[in-house]
Protein backbone atom coordinates (compact mmCIF):
# COMPACT_ATOMS: atom_id res chain seq x y z
CA UNK A 1 0.00 0.00 0.00
CA UNK A 2 1.22 3.49 -0.86
CA UNK A 3 1.48 6.48 1.42
CA UNK A 4 -1.84 7.66 2.83
CA UNK A 5 -3.21 10.89 1.38
CA UNK A 6 -4.42 12.92 4.35
CA UNK A 7 -8.23 13.17 4.47
CA UNK A 8 -8.72 11.44 1.12
CA UNK A 9 -12.01 9.54 1.15
CA UNK A 10 -12.57 8.49 -2.46
CA UNK A 11 -15.80 7.17 -3.86
CA UNK A 12 -17.93 4.65 -2.00
CA UNK A 13 -16.26 1.24 -2.15
CA UNK A 14 -18.56 -0.57 -4.52
CA UNK A 15 -15.73 -2.85 -5.54
CA UNK A 16 -16.50 -4.36 -8.89
CA UNK A 17 -14.70 -7.49 -10.00
CA UNK A 18 -15.10 -6.36 -13.60
CA UNK A 19 -12.90 -3.32 -12.95
CA UNK A 20 -9.13 -3.87 -13.53
CA UNK A 21 -6.63 -2.34 -11.06
CA UNK A 22 -6.23 1.46 -11.22
CA UNK A 23 -9.33 1.94 -13.40
CA UNK A 24 -12.57 3.84 -12.69
CA UNK A 25 -15.96 3.46 -14.29
CA UNK A 26 -17.46 6.00 -16.70
CA UNK A 27 -20.83 6.12 -18.41
CA UNK A 28 -20.02 8.41 -21.32
CA UNK A 29 -17.51 7.53 -24.03
CA UNK A 30 -14.38 9.71 -23.92
CA UNK A 31 -12.39 10.21 -27.12
CA UNK A 32 -8.62 9.93 -27.24
CA UNK A 33 -6.46 10.10 -30.33
CA UNK A 34 -3.15 11.61 -31.31
CA UNK A 35 -4.13 13.73 -34.30
CA UNK A 36 -7.00 15.04 -36.41
CA UNK A 37 -9.87 12.66 -37.16
CA UNK A 38 -9.49 11.25 -40.69
CA UNK A 39 -12.64 11.17 -42.86
CA UNK A 40 -12.77 8.00 -44.94
CA UNK A 41 -15.42 7.81 -47.69
CA UNK A 42 -17.01 4.36 -47.94
CA UNK A 43 -16.48 4.07 -51.71
CA UNK A 44 -12.74 4.32 -51.10
CA UNK A 45 -12.73 2.18 -47.95
CA UNK A 46 -10.80 -1.06 -48.09
CA UNK A 47 -9.57 -3.52 -45.54
CA UNK A 48 -6.52 -5.70 -46.22
CA UNK A 49 -4.61 -8.49 -44.53
CA UNK A 50 -1.16 -9.32 -45.83
CA UNK A 51 1.38 -11.95 -44.85
CA UNK A 52 5.18 -12.20 -44.86
CA UNK A 53 4.76 -15.01 -47.42
CA UNK A 54 3.33 -12.43 -49.84
CA UNK A 55 -0.40 -13.21 -49.67
CA UNK A 56 -2.77 -10.23 -49.71
CA UNK A 57 -6.49 -10.45 -48.92
CA UNK A 58 -8.70 -7.41 -49.59
CA UNK A 59 -12.30 -6.48 -48.92
CA UNK A 60 -14.26 -3.53 -50.25
CA UNK A 61 -16.99 -2.03 -48.04
CA UNK A 62 -19.66 -4.08 -49.86
CA UNK A 63 -17.67 -7.30 -49.62
CA UNK A 64 -17.00 -6.62 -45.96
CA UNK A 65 -20.69 -6.02 -45.20
CA UNK A 66 -21.56 -9.35 -46.84
CA UNK A 67 -19.45 -11.33 -44.34
CA UNK A 68 -21.07 -13.04 -41.34
CA UNK A 69 -21.67 -10.46 -38.60
CA UNK A 70 -21.38 -10.68 -34.85
CA UNK A 71 -22.68 -8.36 -32.13
CA UNK A 72 -20.18 -8.51 -29.26
CA UNK A 73 -21.01 -6.82 -25.93
CA UNK A 74 -17.74 -6.05 -24.18
CA UNK A 75 -16.09 -3.98 -21.45
CA UNK A 76 -13.53 -1.36 -22.52
CA UNK A 77 -10.46 -0.33 -20.55
CA UNK A 78 -8.49 2.76 -21.56
CA UNK A 79 -4.92 3.26 -20.33
CA UNK A 80 -5.94 6.80 -19.25
CA UNK A 81 -7.83 5.01 -16.41
CA UNK A 82 -11.46 4.96 -17.51
CA UNK A 83 -13.41 1.76 -18.10
CA UNK A 84 -16.80 1.43 -19.70
CA UNK A 85 -18.93 -1.67 -19.24
CA UNK A 86 -21.31 -3.43 -21.61
CA UNK A 87 -20.58 -1.63 -24.88
CA UNK A 88 -22.47 -3.07 -27.85
CA UNK A 89 -20.84 -3.38 -31.26
CA UNK A 90 -21.52 -4.91 -34.64
CA UNK A 91 -18.79 -6.18 -36.92
CA UNK A 92 -16.87 -9.10 -38.34
CA UNK A 93 -14.77 -11.47 -36.25
CA UNK A 94 -11.08 -11.64 -37.15
CA UNK A 95 -11.60 -15.43 -37.19
CA UNK A 96 -13.79 -14.94 -40.27
CA UNK A 97 -11.28 -12.61 -41.93
CA UNK A 98 -8.34 -14.93 -41.18
CA UNK A 99 -10.14 -18.07 -42.35
CA UNK A 100 -8.41 -18.26 -45.74
CA UNK A 101 -5.15 -16.64 -44.66
CA UNK A 102 -2.25 -19.06 -44.55
CA UNK A 103 0.87 -17.89 -42.79
CA UNK A 104 3.47 -18.92 -40.25
CA UNK A 105 3.49 -15.36 -38.84
CA UNK A 106 3.17 -14.92 -35.08
CA UNK A 107 2.77 -11.14 -34.85
CA UNK A 108 0.40 -8.56 -36.25
CA UNK A 109 0.57 -4.82 -36.86
CA UNK A 110 -2.73 -3.00 -37.35
CA UNK A 111 -2.42 0.19 -39.39
CA UNK A 112 -4.88 3.02 -39.92
CA UNK A 113 -5.84 5.99 -42.02
CA UNK A 114 -3.90 8.90 -40.52
CA UNK A 115 -0.81 6.76 -39.97
CA UNK A 116 -1.57 5.16 -36.60
CA UNK A 117 -0.16 1.68 -35.91
CA UNK A 118 -0.39 -0.80 -33.04
CA UNK A 119 1.16 -4.24 -32.60
CA UNK A 120 -0.02 -7.41 -30.92
CA UNK A 121 0.63 -11.13 -31.01
CA UNK A 122 -1.45 -12.76 -33.75
CA UNK A 123 -3.05 -15.12 -31.23
CA UNK A 124 -4.66 -12.12 -29.51
CA UNK A 125 -6.66 -11.48 -32.68
CA UNK A 126 -7.99 -15.06 -32.95
CA UNK A 127 -10.46 -17.38 -31.18
CA UNK A 128 -13.26 -14.87 -30.70
CA UNK A 129 -11.09 -12.18 -29.11
CA UNK A 130 -11.12 -9.48 -31.83
CA UNK A 131 -13.38 -7.87 -34.43
CA UNK A 132 -13.44 -5.20 -37.09
CA UNK A 133 -16.52 -3.22 -35.99
CA UNK A 134 -18.57 -0.59 -37.80
CA UNK A 135 -21.56 -0.05 -35.48
CA UNK A 136 -21.62 1.14 -31.88
CA UNK A 137 -24.76 1.13 -29.78
CA UNK A 138 -26.97 0.44 -32.82
CA UNK A 139 -25.61 3.40 -34.82
CA UNK A 140 -22.95 3.61 -37.49
CA UNK A 141 -19.59 4.22 -35.88
CA UNK A 142 -18.84 7.96 -35.60
CA UNK A 143 -15.54 9.20 -37.10
CA UNK A 144 -14.31 10.41 -33.69
CA UNK A 145 -14.67 6.86 -32.35
CA UNK A 146 -12.89 5.32 -35.34
CA UNK A 147 -15.59 5.10 -38.03
CA UNK A 148 -16.24 3.86 -40.59
CA UNK A 149 -14.54 0.84 -38.99
CA UNK A 150 -12.11 0.12 -36.18
CA UNK A 151 -10.37 -2.84 -34.67
CA UNK A 152 -11.85 -4.02 -31.35
CA UNK A 153 -9.62 -6.07 -29.04
CA UNK A 154 -11.33 -5.54 -25.69
CA UNK A 155 -9.09 -7.77 -23.56
CA UNK A 156 -6.22 -5.29 -24.07
CA UNK A 157 -6.07 -1.55 -23.29
CA UNK A 158 -8.09 0.39 -25.82
CA UNK A 159 -5.14 1.87 -27.73
CA UNK A 160 -4.73 -1.62 -29.25
CA UNK A 161 -8.22 -1.26 -30.80
CA UNK A 162 -6.96 0.85 -33.72
CA UNK A 163 -9.45 3.45 -35.00
CA UNK A 164 -9.91 4.02 -38.77
CA UNK A 165 -8.28 0.67 -39.38
CA UNK A 166 -7.06 0.06 -42.91
CA UNK A 167 -5.38 -3.28 -42.60
CA UNK A 168 -3.48 -5.85 -40.61
CA UNK A 169 0.04 -6.83 -41.55
CA UNK A 170 1.14 -10.25 -40.33
CA UNK A 171 4.80 -10.37 -39.37
CA UNK A 172 7.41 -12.93 -38.36
CA UNK A 173 8.86 -10.47 -35.85
CA UNK A 174 7.18 -8.12 -33.41
CA UNK A 175 7.15 -4.55 -34.73
CA UNK A 176 6.21 -1.97 -32.05
CA UNK A 177 3.51 0.50 -33.08
CA UNK A 178 2.79 4.17 -32.37
CA UNK A 179 2.26 4.24 -28.60
CA UNK A 180 4.43 1.16 -28.10
CA UNK A 181 7.43 3.21 -29.32
CA UNK A 182 6.33 6.22 -27.21
CA UNK A 183 6.73 4.70 -23.76
CA UNK A 184 3.61 2.56 -23.49
CA UNK A 185 3.63 -1.16 -22.74
CA UNK A 186 4.20 -3.53 -25.65
CA UNK A 187 1.32 -5.86 -24.73
CA UNK A 188 -1.10 -3.80 -22.59
CA UNK A 189 -3.04 -6.25 -20.42
CA UNK A 190 -5.33 -4.17 -18.13
CA UNK A 191 -5.59 -6.98 -15.57
CA UNK A 192 -1.82 -6.89 -15.08
CA UNK A 193 -1.89 -3.08 -15.28
CA UNK A 194 0.61 -3.06 -18.14
CA UNK A 195 0.33 0.66 -18.90
CA UNK A 196 3.89 1.72 -19.56
CA UNK A 197 7.16 0.12 -20.56
CA UNK A 198 8.48 -1.98 -17.71
CA UNK A 199 5.10 -2.40 -15.95
Amino acid at each position, binding site marked *: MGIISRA*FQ*GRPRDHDEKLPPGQYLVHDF*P*VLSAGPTPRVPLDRWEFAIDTPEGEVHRWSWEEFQALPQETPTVDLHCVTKWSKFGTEWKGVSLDVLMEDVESAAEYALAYSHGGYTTNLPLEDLLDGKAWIVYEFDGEELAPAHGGPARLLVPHLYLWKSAKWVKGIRLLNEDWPGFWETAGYHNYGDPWREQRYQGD
Partner: protein
Amino acid sequence: MIKRLTWRVATVTEIRQETPTARTLVFDVPGWPGHLPGQHVDVKLTADDGYSAQRSYSVANGDDGERVELTVQRVGDGEVSPYLTEVLEVGDQIELRGPVGGWFVWRPHSSPPVLLIGGGSGIVPLMAMIRSRGKSDTPFRLLYSLRDPGQLFYAGELEKVMAGVEVAYLYTRTAPPDAGRAPGRIRAADLIAYGWPPETAPDVFVCGPTGFVEAAADLLTGLGHDPAKIKTERFGPTGG
Protein backbone atom coordinates in the same frame (compact mmCIF):
# COMPACT_ATOMS: atom_id res chain seq x y z
CA MET B 1 17.13 -1.04 -21.06
CA ILE B 2 13.51 -0.63 -20.07
CA LYS B 3 13.20 1.29 -16.84
CA ARG B 4 10.07 0.87 -14.81
CA LEU B 5 8.17 4.07 -14.01
CA THR B 6 8.11 3.93 -10.23
CA TRP B 7 5.72 5.67 -7.88
CA ARG B 8 7.45 8.53 -6.08
CA VAL B 9 6.40 10.51 -3.06
CA ALA B 10 5.53 14.10 -3.99
CA THR B 11 5.32 16.81 -1.31
CA VAL B 12 3.30 19.96 -1.89
CA THR B 13 5.54 23.01 -1.48
CA GLU B 14 3.30 25.76 -2.87
CA ILE B 15 -0.26 26.27 -4.08
CA ARG B 16 -1.44 29.00 -6.46
CA GLN B 17 -5.12 29.61 -7.10
CA GLU B 18 -5.62 30.12 -10.87
CA THR B 19 -9.41 30.54 -10.93
CA PRO B 20 -12.12 29.84 -8.32
CA THR B 21 -12.14 26.18 -9.47
CA ALA B 22 -8.57 25.52 -10.55
CA ARG B 23 -5.22 25.68 -8.86
CA THR B 24 -1.58 24.98 -9.50
CA LEU B 25 0.11 22.54 -7.15
CA VAL B 26 3.88 22.70 -6.88
CA PHE B 27 5.50 19.43 -5.78
CA ASP B 28 8.94 18.47 -4.67
CA VAL B 29 9.58 14.97 -6.05
CA PRO B 30 12.91 13.47 -4.90
CA GLY B 31 14.44 11.39 -7.69
CA TRP B 32 12.31 12.96 -10.44
CA PRO B 33 14.03 12.06 -13.75
CA GLY B 34 12.96 15.25 -15.58
CA HIS B 35 10.35 15.70 -18.30
CA LEU B 36 9.63 17.20 -21.71
CA PRO B 37 7.00 19.92 -22.14
CA GLY B 38 3.66 18.28 -23.00
CA GLN B 39 4.20 15.09 -21.03
CA HIS B 40 1.88 14.03 -18.23
CA VAL B 41 2.06 12.20 -14.93
CA ASP B 42 -0.11 9.71 -13.11
CA VAL B 43 -1.28 10.76 -9.67
CA LYS B 44 -2.32 8.23 -7.04
CA LEU B 45 -4.29 9.00 -3.89
CA THR B 46 -4.66 6.39 -1.18
CA ALA B 47 -7.29 6.40 1.58
CA ASP B 48 -6.52 5.03 5.04
CA ASP B 49 -8.31 1.76 4.28
CA GLY B 50 -5.98 1.12 1.32
CA TYR B 51 -8.43 2.19 -1.37
CA SER B 52 -6.66 4.17 -4.08
CA ALA B 53 -7.60 6.21 -7.15
CA GLN B 54 -5.40 7.21 -10.09
CA ARG B 55 -5.71 9.98 -12.66
CA SER B 56 -3.46 11.55 -15.30
CA TYR B 57 -2.52 15.25 -15.34
CA SER B 58 -0.36 17.27 -17.70
CA VAL B 59 2.75 18.85 -16.26
CA ALA B 60 2.55 22.65 -16.31
CA ASN B 61 6.17 23.64 -15.79
CA GLY B 62 9.27 23.16 -17.87
CA ASP B 63 11.93 20.70 -16.75
CA ASP B 64 13.19 22.06 -13.43
CA GLY B 65 15.07 19.52 -11.36
CA GLU B 66 12.82 17.80 -8.84
CA ARG B 67 10.07 20.41 -9.10
CA VAL B 68 6.81 19.33 -10.78
CA GLU B 69 3.83 21.66 -11.21
CA LEU B 70 0.32 20.46 -12.04
CA THR B 71 -2.64 22.72 -12.71
CA VAL B 72 -5.86 20.94 -11.85
CA GLN B 73 -9.37 22.00 -12.85
CA ARG B 74 -12.10 20.83 -10.50
CA VAL B 75 -14.53 18.44 -12.20
CA GLY B 76 -18.00 18.65 -10.67
CA ASP B 77 -18.63 15.03 -9.73
CA GLY B 78 -14.97 14.02 -9.83
CA GLU B 79 -13.26 11.82 -7.29
CA VAL B 80 -9.68 13.09 -7.45
CA SER B 81 -9.88 16.69 -8.70
CA PRO B 82 -12.05 17.98 -5.81
CA TYR B 83 -9.45 16.61 -3.41
CA LEU B 84 -6.56 18.18 -5.32
CA THR B 85 -8.31 21.54 -5.72
CA GLU B 86 -9.92 21.87 -2.29
CA VAL B 87 -8.37 19.57 0.32
CA LEU B 88 -4.67 19.24 -0.41
CA GLU B 89 -2.44 21.65 1.56
CA VAL B 90 1.22 22.65 1.58
CA GLY B 91 3.18 19.86 3.28
CA ASP B 92 0.78 17.09 2.22
CA GLN B 93 2.07 14.11 0.28
CA ILE B 94 0.67 12.15 -2.64
CA GLU B 95 2.20 9.64 -5.04
CA LEU B 96 3.15 10.41 -8.58
CA ARG B 97 4.83 8.57 -11.47
CA GLY B 98 6.06 9.61 -14.86
CA PRO B 99 6.79 11.34 -17.06
CA VAL B 100 4.46 9.63 -19.52
CA GLY B 101 3.91 10.18 -23.24
CA GLY B 102 6.47 10.72 -25.96
CA TRP B 103 4.17 12.11 -28.67
CA PHE B 104 2.47 15.32 -27.54
CA VAL B 105 5.80 16.97 -26.73
CA TRP B 106 7.71 19.92 -28.05
CA ARG B 107 11.43 19.37 -28.27
CA PRO B 108 13.11 22.74 -27.77
CA HIS B 109 15.68 22.11 -30.51
CA SER B 110 13.04 21.77 -33.24
CA SER B 111 13.00 24.77 -35.57
CA PRO B 112 9.63 25.34 -37.36
CA PRO B 113 7.28 27.93 -35.88
CA VAL B 114 4.99 26.58 -33.19
CA LEU B 115 1.22 26.98 -33.09
CA LEU B 116 -0.45 26.22 -29.77
CA ILE B 117 -4.22 25.96 -29.59
CA GLY B 118 -5.71 25.42 -26.15
CA GLY B 119 -9.29 25.17 -24.93
CA GLY B 120 -9.97 25.68 -21.21
CA SER B 121 -7.63 23.62 -19.05
CA GLY B 122 -6.06 22.37 -22.30
CA ILE B 123 -3.73 25.34 -21.84
CA VAL B 124 -1.72 23.39 -19.23
CA PRO B 125 0.66 21.30 -21.41
CA LEU B 126 0.93 24.24 -23.86
CA MET B 127 2.08 26.46 -21.00
CA ALA B 128 4.83 23.93 -20.26
CA MET B 129 5.97 24.40 -23.87
CA ILE B 130 5.92 28.20 -23.58
CA ARG B 131 7.85 28.02 -20.32
CA SER B 132 10.41 25.69 -21.94
CA ARG B 133 10.99 27.99 -24.87
CA GLY B 134 13.54 30.00 -22.93
CA LYS B 135 15.92 31.77 -25.24
CA SER B 136 15.07 29.60 -28.25
CA ASP B 137 14.40 31.67 -31.37
CA THR B 138 11.47 29.47 -32.44
CA PRO B 139 8.48 31.83 -32.76
CA PHE B 140 5.35 30.77 -30.88
CA ARG B 141 1.72 31.71 -31.35
CA LEU B 142 -0.91 30.71 -28.80
CA LEU B 143 -4.66 30.71 -29.40
CA TYR B 144 -6.30 30.32 -26.00
CA SER B 145 -10.03 29.61 -26.04
CA LEU B 146 -11.81 30.24 -22.74
CA ARG B 147 -15.34 30.91 -21.61
CA ASP B 148 -14.75 34.32 -20.04
CA PRO B 149 -11.88 36.33 -18.50
CA GLY B 150 -12.53 34.73 -15.09
CA GLN B 151 -11.43 31.35 -16.45
CA LEU B 152 -7.94 32.53 -17.38
CA PHE B 153 -5.04 30.41 -16.08
CA TYR B 154 -1.56 31.93 -15.63
CA ALA B 155 -2.98 35.44 -15.96
CA GLY B 156 0.02 37.40 -14.68
CA GLU B 157 2.51 35.37 -16.65
CA LEU B 158 0.66 35.38 -19.98
CA GLU B 159 -0.08 39.08 -19.80
CA LYS B 160 3.59 39.95 -19.45
CA VAL B 161 5.04 40.61 -22.86
CA MET B 162 7.05 37.59 -23.89
CA ALA B 163 9.32 38.25 -26.87
CA GLY B 164 8.63 35.68 -29.56
CA VAL B 165 5.30 34.51 -28.09
CA GLU B 166 2.09 36.04 -29.43
CA VAL B 167 -1.08 35.28 -27.49
CA ALA B 168 -4.66 35.62 -28.77
CA TYR B 169 -7.59 35.08 -26.41
CA LEU B 170 -10.72 33.55 -27.95
CA TYR B 171 -13.56 34.14 -25.49
CA THR B 172 -16.48 31.86 -26.18
CA ARG B 173 -19.15 33.39 -23.88
CA THR B 174 -18.12 36.78 -22.47
CA ALA B 175 -15.29 38.93 -23.78
CA PRO B 176 -13.79 42.02 -22.14
CA PRO B 177 -14.80 45.30 -23.88
CA ASP B 178 -11.41 45.73 -25.55
CA ALA B 179 -11.28 42.17 -26.94
CA GLY B 180 -11.75 43.14 -30.58
CA ARG B 181 -13.42 39.83 -31.35
CA ALA B 182 -17.05 38.87 -30.84
CA PRO B 183 -17.44 36.00 -28.34
CA GLY B 184 -17.82 32.58 -29.95
CA ARG B 185 -16.20 29.24 -30.50
CA ILE B 186 -13.00 28.97 -32.49
CA ARG B 187 -13.48 29.59 -36.22
CA ALA B 188 -11.36 29.55 -39.39
CA ALA B 189 -10.97 33.35 -39.25
CA ASP B 190 -9.23 33.01 -35.86
CA LEU B 191 -6.68 30.59 -37.27
CA ILE B 192 -6.07 32.89 -40.23
CA ALA B 193 -5.78 36.03 -38.08
CA TYR B 194 -3.76 34.64 -35.15
CA GLY B 195 -2.17 31.38 -36.38
CA TRP B 196 0.58 30.57 -38.85
CA PRO B 197 -0.20 30.04 -42.52
CA PRO B 198 0.09 26.38 -43.63
CA GLU B 199 2.98 27.30 -45.95
CA THR B 200 5.20 27.95 -42.91
CA ALA B 201 4.62 24.29 -41.89
CA PRO B 202 4.28 24.97 -38.17
CA ASP B 203 4.36 22.29 -35.50
CA VAL B 204 0.78 22.40 -34.20
CA PHE B 205 -0.35 21.30 -30.74
CA VAL B 206 -4.05 21.25 -29.93
CA CYS B 207 -5.32 20.44 -26.44
CA GLY B 208 -8.71 20.73 -24.80
CA PRO B 209 -12.10 19.05 -24.50
CA THR B 210 -12.97 16.60 -27.29
CA GLY B 211 -15.42 18.90 -29.12
CA PHE B 212 -12.92 21.75 -29.13
CA VAL B 213 -10.06 19.58 -30.39
CA GLU B 214 -12.22 18.00 -33.10
CA ALA B 215 -13.35 21.45 -34.29
CA ALA B 216 -9.87 23.03 -34.23
CA ALA B 217 -8.21 20.06 -35.95
CA ASP B 218 -10.89 19.99 -38.68
CA LEU B 219 -10.46 23.73 -39.26
CA LEU B 220 -6.69 23.35 -39.49
CA THR B 221 -6.83 20.53 -42.05
CA GLY B 222 -9.50 22.49 -43.95
CA LEU B 223 -7.09 25.43 -44.21
CA GLY B 224 -4.44 23.15 -45.67
CA HIS B 225 -2.32 22.23 -42.64
CA ASP B 226 -0.69 18.82 -42.96
CA PRO B 227 -2.55 16.41 -40.62
CA ALA B 228 0.79 14.78 -39.82
CA LYS B 229 1.99 18.05 -38.26
CA ILE B 230 -1.02 18.37 -35.95
CA LYS B 231 -0.67 16.73 -32.56
CA THR B 232 -3.73 16.53 -30.36
CA GLU B 233 -4.46 15.76 -26.73
CA ARG B 234 -8.09 15.49 -25.64
CA PHE B 235 -9.60 15.88 -22.22
CA GLY B 236 -12.92 14.13 -22.16
CA PRO B 237 -15.77 15.46 -20.00
CA THR B 238 -14.80 12.64 -17.66
CA GLY B 239 -11.48 12.56 -15.94
CA GLY B 240 -12.04 14.18 -12.55
